[in-house]
């Protein structure tokens, strides 16, 4: 069997309980102590699973169960403290979509910059530029030379989504981004995701929408307080998640 596209082994990451643990030299020198709290907790621990090429996996779990953190480690923008997450091939991360975009630059410059950051050469971007703009829609097309911050947040997300999905990377990570955009654009997004799936891409999806999960994912992973609670067909995993959530609500 071919090697898995995503290989996660004994993954663990530890966080400080207060989000900010920034230290101050002044305090360290003058008071010989650090006022920043040093209590830690494991946001994720002992996570192991494989994802094969072309598989579509949905990640479920309550708020704060570590879904986004896991996705970030797979995307390589956060590093684990234990174990490893290996991805074979480049990743198209649909996480914090507009993160790579800068408000002062025009939309056009932003497309070149962000695509460049994801490894495309100038010629490759030239070749795909029209496709990206087309997908983002006519309103966007008219304002490509406008500063990016003048776009509405929905428009910004459209450009970013169009760009990232045009990168044509073998692995696609999706974090709750399908909820944005108006109805028409969302339908376009769904269509594009289905095309990517049938094109043999590997999909890793985080969502709270049962509808989205059932539509795209075959397999489900259920995270609860930092541990992998179950791994199986998406319907069973969703059923288990709902049962747990109901039990919590009842108690």
């Amino acid at each position: 069997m071919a090697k898995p596209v995503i290989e996660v082994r004994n993954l663990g990451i530890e966080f400080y309980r207060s989000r900010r643990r920034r230290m101050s030299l002044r305090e360290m020198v003058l008071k010989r102590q650090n006022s920043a709290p040093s209590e830690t907790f494991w946001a994720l621990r002992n996570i192991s699973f494989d994802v094969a090429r072309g598989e579509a996996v949905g990640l479920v779990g309550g708020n704060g169960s570590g879904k986004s953190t896991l996705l970030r480690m797979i995307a390589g923008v956060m590093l684990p403290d234990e174990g490893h997450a290996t991805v074979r091939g480049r990743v198209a991360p649909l996480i914090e979509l507009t993160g790579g975009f800068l408000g002062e630059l025009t939309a056009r410059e932003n497309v070149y910059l962000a695509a460049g950051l994801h490894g495309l050469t100038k010629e490759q971007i030239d070749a795909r530029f029209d496709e990206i703009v087309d997908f983002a829609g006519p309103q966007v097309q008219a304002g490509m030379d406008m500063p990016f911050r003048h776009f509405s947040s929905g428009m910004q997300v459209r450009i970013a989504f169009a760009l990232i999905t045009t990168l044509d990377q073998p692995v696609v990570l999706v974090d709750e981004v399908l909820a944005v955009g108006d109805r028409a654009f969302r339908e376009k997004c769904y269509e594009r995701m289905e095309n990517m799936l049938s094109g043999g891409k590997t999909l890793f999806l985080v969502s709270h929408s049962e509808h989205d999960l059932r539509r795209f994912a075959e397999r489900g992973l259920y995270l609860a307080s930092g541990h992998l609670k179950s791994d199986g067909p998406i319907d069973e995993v969703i059923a288990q998640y709902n049962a747990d959530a109901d039990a919590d609500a009842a108690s």
Partner: protein
Amino acid sequence: MIGVSQFRGLMANRQVVRTLVERDLRVRYAGSVLGWVWTVLDPLLMALIYLVVFTVIFQARRGGHQPYFLHLVTGLFLWQWFAQNMTETSRALLSEARLVRSANLPRELWVVRVVLAKGVEFVLTLPVIAAFTIFYMITGQTKLHWTIVLLPVSLVLTFLLSVGIGMILAPVTVLVNDMARVVRIVLRLGFYATPVLYSADMAPPVLQKLLLFNPMSGILELFRSGFFKGEMNILSVSSAVVLTVVLLFVGAFVFKRLEPAVLKEI
């Protein structure tokens, strides 16, 4: 091995580095030469001030190499590049937090990119130094020496040294609140601990030994030697080379060690 894999990662992404450097320069020089004027004006004015203070007011017998103005200009231009590298690299990860968070790139790239962009700005100011040199050559106050060919070496050393220190400053500034202030103070001290205004051979022997521990001292000597008498203290230059290499490896190590913590913070 530490450093080697990081270097490979950077080389694999040199296209990205180029894109970012071009963007920096575009923002800085957006549509005008005014950006260039600022880079040149600041050290030139400072050189003028020091010239007046030391030769007219203090009437120092000898300020450094002669002509003293050229001595000041060469020193201040190179120092400006180095000093900007320090302040900018210490902010490198914080100021681009959104990009750092959203792209899976070797994080060292954010440091290298700043030093490179500032380096291009510095190279663009070299014609000013050349113009003054030509002026003083025509008036017979100085002549070029063969060691001018070592000038590129001094630039490469400044680059490597800045990247090395920058790889320490960038992650530490993310984790420690008041690091930026410390950098500012140390830089001000460093300015006087580097033979920018004076020349190293004017210092008393004890201080000359201390200067050996300042890599910028040897690098500046190498940079200047071609413009003046062509002599340089081999000991201080070799000490600068050794310190630069050491700091580069220390920087690479520190950066790798702090990287996971930094990514959680930004």
